[in-house]
Structures are given as C-alpha cells and as structure tokens.
C-alpha cells in the first residue's frame, strides 16, 4: 500500500462453511489483509496469489470478487447520501430479503449509513453482505465500539446468517467476547504482517495473549503450523 509492504509470507486457507478468527494488535495488518482479499485497488499484491474456490482472483476488481461470493463488512462504512438502505439493498441483493425486526425496518428507510449509530452500522453491514449471497464473509472489526448488549445482537445476526448460508467467515477482532460467542474453528494471530500462530483453541490463544501480550505468540508452541 503506497509502496510500503504490509503483509509478508502469509498463508491462510479457510475451508467451506468454517469460521476462522484473526486477531492481532493494532497496525499488525489485519484490515489490510481484509482489503486485499476484497480487492480494494490501493492494496497491491506484489508476490503470491489469492485463490477463491480454486480460481485465482488476485487481479480481479472488487465488484468481480463480490460477484464470485467474496464479501466484507467495513469497520467504518462511508455515508452515501440520497439513497436509502432499502433502495440500495434492492439494487445489490441477489434475492429477496425479509427481516421481521422493527430496528431493521426503520434503518431501511434511512439514507445509507448517514447518521447511523455504531450498532446500526454493523447491522446494516451484515444484512447488506448477506443479501449478496456470499460464500466468504470477512467481518472487519464488526465488534468495535459496541457495548455488550449490542454485540450480542450483532453476533446473533451473524450466526443466524452464517448458518442459513453455510458461508465461510473470517472474523477480524481484538476482543475476546466475540471469539467466545462465535467459537471459531480456527484462530490466527497476526504480528507485523505475518500470521505467527494458528490454533484450533481460541481460548488458549486468547489466554496467552492476555497474560503475556502478543509478543509471546512469536515463541509459543501452541500453533499447529508455525511459520
């Protein structure tokens, strides 16, 4: 990005219908990885490939990746004036959407992200990406800035949608609550643009990080395939 390499020697594979978590300190490259998988133009791949269902998508623009089934929720989605969430959903949706929820119904009539609260943004992001009938959803800090009640609502919606669609998920976070609620099949730790640990036991990973900070991940033996 801007000529500065951010991610290096990175290997990550997410099987179908599995949920992986990616944790790491601020600035470690987690969001960069999300944007790179999504294909946001300013993030360029200099070495390596992104394979999606065995297809090399490394050079595809974001809209093509979206059409193939890659979707991501934005941490800070921008305001788009003059179009309501409902109009936008009708435009992008691959099928019908029907939410029997007064909060969502009210949100639908408002301009996309304009004046949305933190929780409203996250809910709007989730219903948008699932309307695309995705095969992989990247949740970029979907839990940031939410109190525990709002987080519960958001996680419940994520779980329901993931169960319905059997989509794979990459949950990027630095909070333990969402891990305990999502129970990821695999947890990865990212430090300085590298995945330094991959473990099936998110609880142990989290305990290590909590007790010894992320630095410990560099030397600990927890990882099933150390890089």
């Amino acid at each position, binding site marked *: 990005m801007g000529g500065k390499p951010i991610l290096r020697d990175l290997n990550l594979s997410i099987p179908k219908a599995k949920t992986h978590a990616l944790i790491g300190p601020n600035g470690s490259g987690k969001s960069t990885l999300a944007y790179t998988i*999504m*294909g*946001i*133009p*300013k993030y360029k791949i200099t070495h390596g490939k992104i394979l999606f269902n065995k297809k090399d998508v490394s050079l595809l*623009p*974001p*809209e093509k*990746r*979206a*059409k193939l089934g890659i*979707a*991501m929720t*934005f941490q800070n*989605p*921008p*305001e*788009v*004036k*003059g*179009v309501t969430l409902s109009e*936008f959903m009708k*435009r*992008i949706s691959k099928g019908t959407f029907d939410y029997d929820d007064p909060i969502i119904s009210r949100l639908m009539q408002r*301009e996309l992200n304009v004046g949305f609260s933190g929780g409203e943004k996250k809910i709007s992001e989730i219903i*948008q*990406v699932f309307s*695309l009938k995705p095969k992989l959803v990247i949740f970029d800090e979907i839990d940031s800035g939410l109190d525990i009640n709002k987080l519960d609502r958001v996680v419940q919606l994520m779980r329901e949608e993931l169960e319905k669609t059997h989509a794979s998920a990459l949950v990027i976070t630095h909070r333990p609550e969402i891990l305990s609620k999502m129970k990821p099949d695999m947890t990865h730790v990212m430090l300085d643009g590298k995945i330094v640990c991959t473990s099936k036991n998110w609880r142990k990973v989290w305990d290590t990080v909590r007790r010894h900070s992320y630095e410990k991940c560099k030397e600990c033996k927890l990882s099933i395939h150390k890089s």
Partner: protein
Amino acid sequence: MKNAKSASYQYINHKIKEIYAQNGITLLPMKEAMKKIPLAKRYAKKGRNEGYFMWVKKQPKFPLSSCVSVSSKNISQHVLNLLVVEKGIHVDMLSLCNALVENLNATHDAKGTIILKEGASATFKSIHRWGKDDKLTTNYRFVLEKDAKLSYYYKSLSPPARMDIKTTVLCYEGAKADMEIVINASGSDVKTTDTLYLNGDNASGTIKSRIVVSNGSEAKVYSQIVGNAAGRGHLDCQGMLLDNESRVTFIPKLIDKNKDVTMTHEASIGKISEEELNYLRSRGLSEDEAIELIVNGFLR
C-alpha cells in the same frame, strides 16, 4: 384520479396541442390574452407572442401543467408565460420544457412571471430536457405578495451545450421561498443566476444549488440574497467535480441593506470519494454504476 389536471397547456414547435382549464381558471394563449386582459397587457413584451396566460381564481382540485416541446429542426421559440394565483389559493405546477429528440438545433428562450397574491402558495417544478445542440435561455421572475409561499424546484439532468437560466424571487412581508436548482452538466456550459430579494419584514427564503460537472463542462453558479427588509435568508451551494477537464465556479453573494436581516451561506465543492467508490464496488457495483449512484444521490 391519477394524472388528472385542473389546467393543461401543451405546445409543440409553434402550435398549441392542448389548452384547457377547469372552471375558475382562465387559460389563454399569451397572444390572445395580451389583447383582451389588462393584467396580461401589462406584462406584454415585444417580439414574444408564444406562451400562456394562466389566472387561477378558484382553488384547483388537481395540479396545473404546461409542456413546451420541440420536435422539428431549427425551431426557435420565444416564450412569455404569466401565471397569477389569487389570494389564499394553493397550486401545484409542473412545467416541462424539452426537445423530443436529439440534434434538432432548437432555441428555447423563455421569460415568465409568476405572481402569488397574498397568502397564496405554490409548488413549482420546472423540468428541462434538451438535446446537446439546443440553446436554452430562461428568465423567470416570481413575485410573492404578503405571506405567500413558494417551493421552487428546477432540474436539468442532461443540459444542452449552452444554457443560461435566471430565476429571481421577490418576497414581500412574511413571504417565504425555497428554491432548489439541480443540474448534472456533462459537456455543457452552464450559467445559472438565482436571486432572492427579501423585500418585506419577516420575509424568508433559501437557495439550494446542487451541480455536478463532468466531460469538459463549465458551470458558473451565481446565487445571491438581497436583504432590503428585516428577513432571513440562507444560501447553500454544493458542487461535485468529476474530472480535471471541467470547471465549476460558485459566486454566492449576500447583500445586506437592513441591519435586522439575518443571512448565511455555505458553499462546497468536492469530488467522489475513493472510499465511497470502493465501498460500493465491494457490494458488486461496477465503477461506473457506483459513480452514477453517488451522483444521483447527491442531486436528489
């Protein structure tokens, strides 16, 4: 009743296609009105004998409409319209001016006066749709007597190569006018001059302009509020520039001649944000579709 009209005036090239009005509304071709009706005589202008004279004396049930079109090559229209709305009456007016096909090389030069008498109110929507090689000049004047209310909306989503539109609103005591000008200029030279006069105490109004320029367009937007009496006014100009070949100039002006006037203005010009574009693309819209969505949203 959908599409019902209390008065309708349809004019193509130099011919009237339809002219009718319900009881309580006088609707005549301007040419005829100038001879018969003293009020029309006062506004008569030499060399202008196209257009309508509409006088609303009774509350209409349905909207009023006028549609002036060009369908043949090299037509030159010189229109003079006069609409008078009597005291306390509310009208909804839809005014459409267009070329029915591209490449007609039409000239549409329209002048008009709209008088809203005491306590009268109007929503006046003016929609223009012209071909690239047509020439468009308009000069409309709205006179709002005591406590009259106007909501004026002008929209041109595909302006001709050259257009010059002028709108002047005079607000007397307690009158209120909200003007909104929406233009999407692509390969066009656009000049708009919008002026709001606060001529009576407690008169108030806003001028809101939304202009998008692209493909070598040049837009000059002159908007001003003149405070002659203790009223309130606000100017709000926002532009969006889509490429480096285009240019947009905002000239907002507040002229205060009374110490009890409150006037404010805001103006901003921006571009399409990369962040918004990427966001929409990640939801499956192509770059062009995303730009269109952002532009339409901005002009809405």
